[in-house]
């Protein structure tokens, strides 16, 4: 283990944490061993090696610019090119006598499976969403249960991703208090910590579908407590005021970030800024990408049943289980409201039946 990379990956997950792009060996793989593909994010590769201990497999660590599978695929940094390059240059062609590649399911928004197949002659099989399901997936003859295809966001996953992404904000706040208000440093540390754990552990049960709406109720409660403490002239009013304001600010930050952290939710940022009429800030574009336009309602997921070729890719790779099939083996967008605009179905559809179609704007 590389302790520096481990700490960096754990607590500074907003930043890439690359590991070597190479063909890894799990156990003692031979010519029949499965070939798994992953990103080159240090923590992911480390977790794969740990979880798959005792198995024999080839692990093709491919270039995702040091970012995790889901984020890199969403940002198109983990793509068909990365996989094709790894297959062709790693020498795996000479090491196995099959041509079956297991791709991480959450890589589907970035890696167009057909491009990989056309350019390499390998057949793509989608693996499970979670690393811990890989042994069961392989033992069952590469059959994926419905649970293996679906993304979840349980308390462990919530703590893992949110500690990784929110720690830098926590640190910046701590440094701010250290230099500019050290008498409140301890208040900040415990209030921010308690707020963080309370919000991340309870968020699925808070009302609202988005991160920012989920904090509204809590913010109102805290605001009422603040007003009451001021009106009643409670003792230690200064510290109560400081604690409540710290909690409210931290809640706003956590709520803003939740959409970006949770794989079961879509980003809050784009619709929010679009509603404010902000398209770009400097070189930062908030509008114009397919994903952005899907999120802010300028486009919608359109499906042409006549073009459906029955490849079933949409149902295979949708992490939310939005797609089902009718008795004629044609796709049906059964649970549209669950869609988080990840675009995986659009990228993988062989009949080009799924599109992000522009909505007709009536002025």
């Amino acid at each position, binding site marked *: 283990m590389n302790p520096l990379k481990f700490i960096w990956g754990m607590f500074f997950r*907003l930043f890439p944490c690359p590991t070597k*792009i190479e063909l890894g060996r799990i156990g003692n793989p031979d010519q029949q061993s499965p070939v798994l593909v992953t990103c080159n994010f240090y923590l992911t590769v480390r977790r794969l090696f740990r979880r798959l201990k005792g198995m024999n497999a080839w692990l093709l660590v491919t270039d995702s610019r040091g970012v995790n599978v889901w984020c890199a695929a969403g940002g198109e940094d983990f793509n068909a090119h990365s996989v094709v*390059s790894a297959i062709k240059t790693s020498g795996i062609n000479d090491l196995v006598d099959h041509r079956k590649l297991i791709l991480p399911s959450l890589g589907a928004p970035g890696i167009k499976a057909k491009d990989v197949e056309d350019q390499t002659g390998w057949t793509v099989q989608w693996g499970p969403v979670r690393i811990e399901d890989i042994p069961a997936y392989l033992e069952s003859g590469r059959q994926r249960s419905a649970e293996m295809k679906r993304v979840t966001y349980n308390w462990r996953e919530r703590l893992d991703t949110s500690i990784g992404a929110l720690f830098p904000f926590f640190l910046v706040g701590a440094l701010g208090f250290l230099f500019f208000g050290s008498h409140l440093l301890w208040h900040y540390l415990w209030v921010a910590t308690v707020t963080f754990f309370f919000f991340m552990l309870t968020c699925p049960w808070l009302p609202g579908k988005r991160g920012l709406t989920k904090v509204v109720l809590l913010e109102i409660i805290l605001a009422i407590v603040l007003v009451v403490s001021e009106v009643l002239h409670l003792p230690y009013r200064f510290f109560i005021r400081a604690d409540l304001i710290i909690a409210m600010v931290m809640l706003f930050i956590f709520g803003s*970030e939740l959409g970006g952290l949770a794989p079961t939710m879509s980003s809050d940022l784009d619709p929010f800024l679009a509603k404010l009429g902000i398209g770009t800030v*400097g070189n930062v574009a908030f509008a114009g990408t397919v994903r952005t336009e899907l999120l802010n309602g300028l486009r919608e997921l359109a499906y042409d049943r006549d073009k459906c070729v029955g490849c079933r890719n949409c149902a295979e790779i949708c992490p939310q289980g939005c797609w089902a099939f009718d008795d004629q083996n044609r796709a049906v967008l059964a649970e549209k409201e669950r869609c988080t605009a990840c675009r995986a179905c659009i990228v993988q559809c062989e009949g080009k039946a799924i599109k992000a179609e522009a909505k007709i704007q009536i002025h």
Partner: protein
Amino acid sequence: MFSYIFMKILENRPRSYDRMMDRASRGRILSVKQTIAAELVDANHVLDIGCGTGELAAMLAVQGSKVEGFDVNAEMVEVARQRILKKNLANAVSIHQMGVAGMDGFPDSDYDAVVSTLAFSELSDDERHFALKHCRRILKPYGLILIADEVVPQKKLKKILHVTIRIPMLLAAYLVSRTASHPIADLAGEISSAGFSIQKEIRSHGDSFAMVVGRLEMPDTT
């Protein structure tokens, strides 16, 4: 929300790439490209691996070479194509969007020279090995390979100095292209192992930058 903004700021900015890289490298990149171009005055057909914004490809075309360049970054390729059109070099230069993995599609013994500046350090070990293997295959007998890139200094003290100095350069590269380079430990050794005889190795900038010229001595028979 905040992390999203941060990630967006790091998006590709190829239009300012040359300017920023040149500033960060204190003029070294442009002078290296000029040196390479001067070595290849007589080359008819040249391949530029990781051609970026097409600066070197254009220099070579102006000298009369027919140049093919490729880069994996679509925006870089777009900027390179615009440069070629602007300079009326469309007949002499063609730019493709692809990575080194696509080199297996190039015909055998077709090029007089292969050049590459600051691209090999962005490749993985496997990709470098693969690229060099195909350079040997696609070069004509006695063809030249010229690679200029960041290398690891050989002496310990210079290594430490190098790490300190390269931080701003790394940051510039990361901000414009979100790629981090990895200085190559033994560039000349890798080129030599791929079947080239080393003609020249010029080290500069505190031993941290090298231009290696190799020649394919024997016609490739593999």
